[in-house]
């Protein structure tokens, strides 16, 4: 089962693990953000790529995680560590309440409904509900992680925390692929009607994907708020959701290396080409179109011709 893809993935992880030894803190900050966004993109991929649900509101869950940590820390003085569990659980709960009534909607309708949730979310944040969210300013001065009297405040600390988070996410996704859920999701994505006739409860598994994706995005959000010590509504608006959506499709949906490449291209490359300033997004848009025309299934697509062995077992 050790194919080329996993070898490359391991090589990448090793590289990312030693990355801080070679670069200054400016690059480390870019690296940290890359890791955080990669986690969000992977969680988006669980919903969009694997379960095949047209979901364009992922910034909601990312934002919920970030705001949970920020609110509990800034408004209630909880240490960051204590906010981690709620930052994962609250997005999961919201995902369930929000998505359960609409999970049966067909692709494009679900897409617009998730955009709608994102817009409502932003409005809630901007209107400073219960005086908790800080309104349009957001919340500032979020603490760093402290444990046994140590401050994990340097950029290297942040980097490794994000690195561990990415590692955990990859582990979850690996287990997911091998599980019953993984198989079900694979078939739902390939052919929903066939999957249904095989007795797979499509709604249940889609909802499961949503809740799992929301939890992981929440964890990334928590990390994000600590990294920048500030959260504000526009970091979680529809544009951000569209970015996560695009990352998955440009990279290659349901493909781990694809999503990581997508994150690199959509997040790190624009950071590098900041010099071009104004023309940057023009080039970016052209690149999006060209990528889709030349590689409609993404830069590093999953090859559906070769169904991995572990997926073949059990169902047939």
């Amino acid at each position, binding site marked *: 089962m050790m194919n080329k893809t996993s070898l490359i993935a391991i090589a990448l992880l090793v590289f990312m693990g030693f990355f801080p030894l070679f670069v200054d803190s400016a690059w*480390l900050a870019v690296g940290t953000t890359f890791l955080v966004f990669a986690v969000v993109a992977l969680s988006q991929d669980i919903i969009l790529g694997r379960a095949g649900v047209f979901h364009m509101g992922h910034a909601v869950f990312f934002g919920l995680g970030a705001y949970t940590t920020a609110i509990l820390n800034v408004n209630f003085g909880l240490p960051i560590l204590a906010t981690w569990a709620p930052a994962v659980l609250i997005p999961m709960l919201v995902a369930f309440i929000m998505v359960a009534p609409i999970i049966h909607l067909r692709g494009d309708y679900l897409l617009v409904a998730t955009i709608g949730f994102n817009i409502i979310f932003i409005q809630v944040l901007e209107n400073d509900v219960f005086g908790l969210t800080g309104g349009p300013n957001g919340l500032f001065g979020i603490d760093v992680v402290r444990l046994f009297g140590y401050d994990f405040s340097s950029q290297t600390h942040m980097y490794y925390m994000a690195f561990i988070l990415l590692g955990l996410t990859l582990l979850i996704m690996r287990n997911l692929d091998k599980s019953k859920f993984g198989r079900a999701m694979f078939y739902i994505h390939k052919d929903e009607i066939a999957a249904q006739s095989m007795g797979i409860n499509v709604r249940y598994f889609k909802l499961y994907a949503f809740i799992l994706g929301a939890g992981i995005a929440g964890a990334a959000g928590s990390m994000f708020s600590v990294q920048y010590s500030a959260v504000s509504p526009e970091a979680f608006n529809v544009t951000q959701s569209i970015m996560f959506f695009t990352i998955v499709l440009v990279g290659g949906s349901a493909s781990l290396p694809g999503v990581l490449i997508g994150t690199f291209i959509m997040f790190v490359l624009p950071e590098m080409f900041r010099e071009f300033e104004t023309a940057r997004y023009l080039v970016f848009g052209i690149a999006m179109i060209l990528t889709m025309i030349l590689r409609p299934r993404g830069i590093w697509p999953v090859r559906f011709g070769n169904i991995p062995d572990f997926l073949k077992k059990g169902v047939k």
Partner: protein
Amino acid sequence: MKKMLPKIAASLAVCSILAGASVAADVIKIGVQAPITGSYASEGQSIDNGVKLIVEQYNAKGGILGKKIEVVTCDDQGAAQQAAICAKKLVNEGVKAVIGSYTSGATEAAQTTYHRAGVLQTSDGTSDSLIAHKYWTFFRNSFPNSAEAEYTAKYFVDGKQYKKIVILSDYSSYSTDLADATVKALKAKNANIIYEGKIKSGSQNFTATLTKIKSMDPDVIYFSGYYTDGGLLRAQQIQLGIKADFVGGDSNDNPDYMKLAGDSAKGTLLINVPTPDILPYDIAKTFLVDYKAKFNMAPASIWSLMNVDGLRAILHVMEQSKSDDTKVIAEGLHALKDFPGITGPVTFREDGERIGGGYMTYEVQADKSYKIVYQ
């Protein structure tokens, strides 16, 4: 761990644009954090231009403390998240001071990072919350919303004696803060506020909100947001036949306000500090001429000049104290007394607040010229 070789190798490997930006001790770096793109791009570019002009002038004289000054610009797009990213980036670049940002929200999001790193920051953001943390690194080069709010309240209650006041703001950090400060100041004077509302900036269609306001028959509509919405609000107010006065906060004072409101602009009351072209100081006149010569246009507004004053004050103190240590510079800035700025004398309070600021109210005439009606 921090050896040059692997560093350069890694940089090359990722086509780093920062490859050349290795630590060089013979320059002093000044950061600019401003909205170079996005809705406030004209203001951001104006700040960047102003800073570059001053730095060029210094470098022509041989730099500062025997070193050349280098400007590092980071585009925060007027967004808090980008601002936080910029802050990290500029700190990592090793800048001594950061000029900006334009909006209060972007300024605030970056503050903590600069403070933790001991990097000076000077901004024209007017939100009162900017000095709430009392960071020693932060200096406001404009005047706070609370000062404008108090002036506005005095004008409304003592001057105009309005009985029914409507307050509108948008969702931006600055506008919300100014509206809140104005409401607070008005309430302290027992004024009667009949409606407080928010409009969504850029949504263009405000007729629904205005129709609702019409049914309340107010004396005055005060708007604390930006000219891009203010001009439209005024035009639609006149269109709907609402006979209240329209008073705009400082960010409505912009030539585009007149164009947007068209004929409806007549009679608008604008509250602001003096505009660039009427600044009486010689330094201001010279600077405006230089700016125009280099960039072939006028600065976007008074705000970029205030940021330029922030930079000038910092460079002045560096020269005086012969030190590039930020602690020393901060002390020097606090000790400044009426430093001659483009926008008037510069003096900072202990919490980084700039002291002073004379507000006035202009009435827009039929030919779009200003008449000072209250001071």
